[in-house]
């Protein structure tokens, strides 16, 4: 294993000068206040960057990578910073250079016949779908943060979203990736043909959380908008009844486009925020969407109604009008903003459990929160078994953080014990790095490290993320100062 980043880096002033020469002075920032903003993402973690830069072209990204390395510093790719697992938090033995792709935000080409588009990494997810809507197409991955998250970030995290239940997560919608590799070279993975030659490096790159390079151009597959869509809102007296309905729908062989659950705490917050007519007295509500051709949609919607009633649904509201559907989805996607009404801070978890075990796992999750005297709500992709327990709190309350973190760890362990996995769509990042051993053996982790090391043999690209200390030759064991898990 080659030497990793130098123990001591060159002074920041020289780094800023070189980056300014390669990019332009106004796109290289080193003032402490501004750099401080890039020490965090949307997780509860933080780190410290040396310099933040904003390239405009693949050539500038490559230059930023090479200059970072020449100055003995690792680099951290960053999109919109909406990540929830600390993947974009700057960490390293020495303070890294943060390379931000938000200014590379052009849609380069749309081919409505071949149903694909080339985009730069900073294009926002929802902007892409809006731009191709006139062709009757959309970009199917739809994370709740889609108004602010970037396609480059979606690629890094293999992002999901409610409608991935039917359409699949980001990896199923990425055809090709041009990336700057950790040595500063540029390569193309995948291609516009169905089976590009060689190993599926495109598939390996998607979801690598910015540890194998920086995507600079992305070819995405576009999906036709469905001819018919029906959205159902069912509400229940108990969590058990709503979760059993989810299992019942899947067991009946129905694959809805989306199948989401919100519990009462979340529904109350959301309703106060969007006034969509969500029943705030229900213990839980399900938002179910079916799409496709009219007869299939009608049959599935009927069957879902029957299953929900059989499990004790109180009312079922059917929305076929686009405006009403949009309002219901606005409610669902505003959930994380809406909880700010309950308390100033939240810690959002992301695990997946087998769908037949939703009821028992949810009950355990509530019990954990109660035992730690914490407020917890659930709003999640029930059809995938993708839980998002949300702990809301005020971090100024003395002694609360240890309880929040302890509850989070217990929730994760309960999910693993039920046969689940650590993350469904937010990634491992820093947050769950040290839990990887719960799921994977040393041999498993070594194989993952082989993949990463093939791309980044010297460990300069978003170091210390994803794989626990010791998985990679030469890894530093401890988290950086300022980071807390």
């Amino acid at each position, binding site marked *: 294993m080659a030497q990793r980043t130098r123990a001591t880096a060159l002074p920041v002033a020289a780094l800023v000068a070189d980056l300014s020469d390669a990019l332009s002075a106004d796109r290289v920032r080193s003032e402490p206040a501004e750099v401080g903003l890039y020490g965090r993402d949307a997780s509860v973690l933080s780190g410290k960057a040396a310099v933040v830069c904003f390239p405009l072209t693949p050539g500038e990204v490559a230059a930023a990578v090479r200059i970072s390395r020449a100055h003995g510093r690792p680099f951290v790719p960053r999109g919109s910073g909406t990540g929830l697992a600390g993947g974009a938090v700057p960490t390293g033995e020495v303070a890294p250079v943060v390379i931000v792709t938000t200014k590379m935000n052009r849609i380069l080409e749309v081919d409505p016949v071949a149903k694909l588009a080339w985009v730069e990494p900073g294009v926002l997810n929802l902007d892409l779908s809006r731009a191709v809507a006139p062709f009757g197409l959309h970009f199917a991955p739809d994370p709740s943060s889609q108004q602010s998250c970037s396609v480059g970030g979606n690629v890094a995290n293999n992002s999901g979203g409610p409608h991935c239940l039917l359409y699949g997560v980001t990896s199923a919608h990425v055809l090709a990736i041009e990336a700057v590799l950790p040595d500063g070279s*540029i390569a193309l993975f995948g291609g516009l043909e169905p089976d590009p030659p060689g190993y*599926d490096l495109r598939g390996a790159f998607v979801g690598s959380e910015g540890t194998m390079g920086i995507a600079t151009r992305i070819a995405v597959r576009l999906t036709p908008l469905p001819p018919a869509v029906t959205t159902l809102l069912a509400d229940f007296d108990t969590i058990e009844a709503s979760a059993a309905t989810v299992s019942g729908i899947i067991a009946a062989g129905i694959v809805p486009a989306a199948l989401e659950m919100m519990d009462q705490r979340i529904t109350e917050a959301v309703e106060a925020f969007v006034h969509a007519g969500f029943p705030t007295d229900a213990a839980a509500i399900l938002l179910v969407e079916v799409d496709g*051709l009219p007869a299939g949609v009608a049959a599935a919607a009927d069957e879902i109604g029957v299953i929900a009633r059989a499990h004790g649904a109180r009312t079922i509201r059917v929305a076929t009008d686009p405006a009403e559907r949009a309002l219901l989805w606005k409610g669902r996607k505003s959930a994380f903003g809406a909880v700010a009404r309950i308390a100033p801070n939240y810690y959002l978890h992301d695990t997946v459990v087998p769908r037949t075990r939703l009821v028992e796992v949810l009950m355990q999750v509530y019990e954990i929160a109660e035992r730690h005297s914490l407020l917890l709500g659930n709003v999640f992709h029930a059809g995938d078994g993708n839980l998002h327990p949300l702990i809301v709190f005020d971090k100024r309350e003395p002694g609360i953080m240890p309880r929040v973190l302890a509850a989070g760890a217990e929730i994760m362990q309960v999910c693993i014990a039920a046969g689940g996995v650590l993350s469904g*769509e937010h990634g491992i990042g820093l947050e769950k790095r040290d839990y990887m051993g719960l799921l994977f053996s040393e041999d498993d982790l070594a194989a*993952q490290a082989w993949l990463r090391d093939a791309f980044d043999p010297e460990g300069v690209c978003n170091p210390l993320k994803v794989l626990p200390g010791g998985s990679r030759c030469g890894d530093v064991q401890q988290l950086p100062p300022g980071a807390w898990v």
Partner: protein
Amino acid sequence: MGVSQAGLASVGAFAEEVGRDGPVCVAGGRTQWHVGGEPKPGTREVRAPGGVVSHQPAEMIVRVLAGTRVTDLNDGLAAAGQMVPLDPAAPDHATVGGVLAVGHSGPRRLRYGPARDTVLEVRFVNADGRLVKAGGPVVKNVTGYDLCRLMVGSLGTLGLLAEVVLRCYPRPAASRWFRSVPSLRDPREVAGRVYRASSVLWNGEQTWVWLEGHPADVAAQAEEVLGTAFEEVTRPPALAYRHRLSLPPAAFSRLLAGELSAPGPWLAEVGVGTVHTDRPADVAATLGISWPPRLEARVAALHQELKARFDPTGRLNPGRQVAVAVPV
């Protein structure tokens, strides 16, 4: 989904058989044995164990040993009204592990996506004869690096598949094939107007469309979209060609424009870009693409880096090549 003791025992025995020393190649049903070149002569041949370990219909996932014949997998799933749309040309012989190691998708890729997207978890035997797991038995998972996709299409050069967990789909209530009258329509225009066809095939003269789903939707699409230019047929055209070419949209447009005159017969998957043929070099030359497909130098170097780490002594499937490198 639990791992049965019998399943554990058989993958363990497979790992032992692969061992740590000497060149070893893995055979499935030998239906695509020519892809990537044959193993070096004298290489010891092993076979992965077969059998469905567990199918949980309510989870819509199945854990299956790599040596299971695709027919046996889908026969097992059919009782619960489910399927895995791998669709190899010879499902009575092809194995699940073989289909995934070769990485060829079936003709329903247009609707269900590529074969790699059905894979949720893999367990493979590494070059040290040890079992490695990646992914997990749930339908959505970003826990760690995506070694599942790296393994699909790797021809067993990075590890030998022992067991996989696959995503199941409901068997469609209606499944019907339609064939156009000769030389009637632009197949891409038809493909664009049919919503979520399972397959659209074209041989330069005729178009076949596979419609699946709710019976009323299938009937309505057949009547309103395909119309009188199509008639229902009982079976699709044979896909038993030895090679497949992978065309980007621009090359596919040249195919549609009739630039491919002589070297038939062939069959194209419209909307996907795959062309099935026995004469890949001739077809490729006509359409201006390279055969065999080549890797750019930087990507080829990454292949070598991967191979050096996963299989430092080069004992896994020696002689097989996933692609040809551009000479540096």
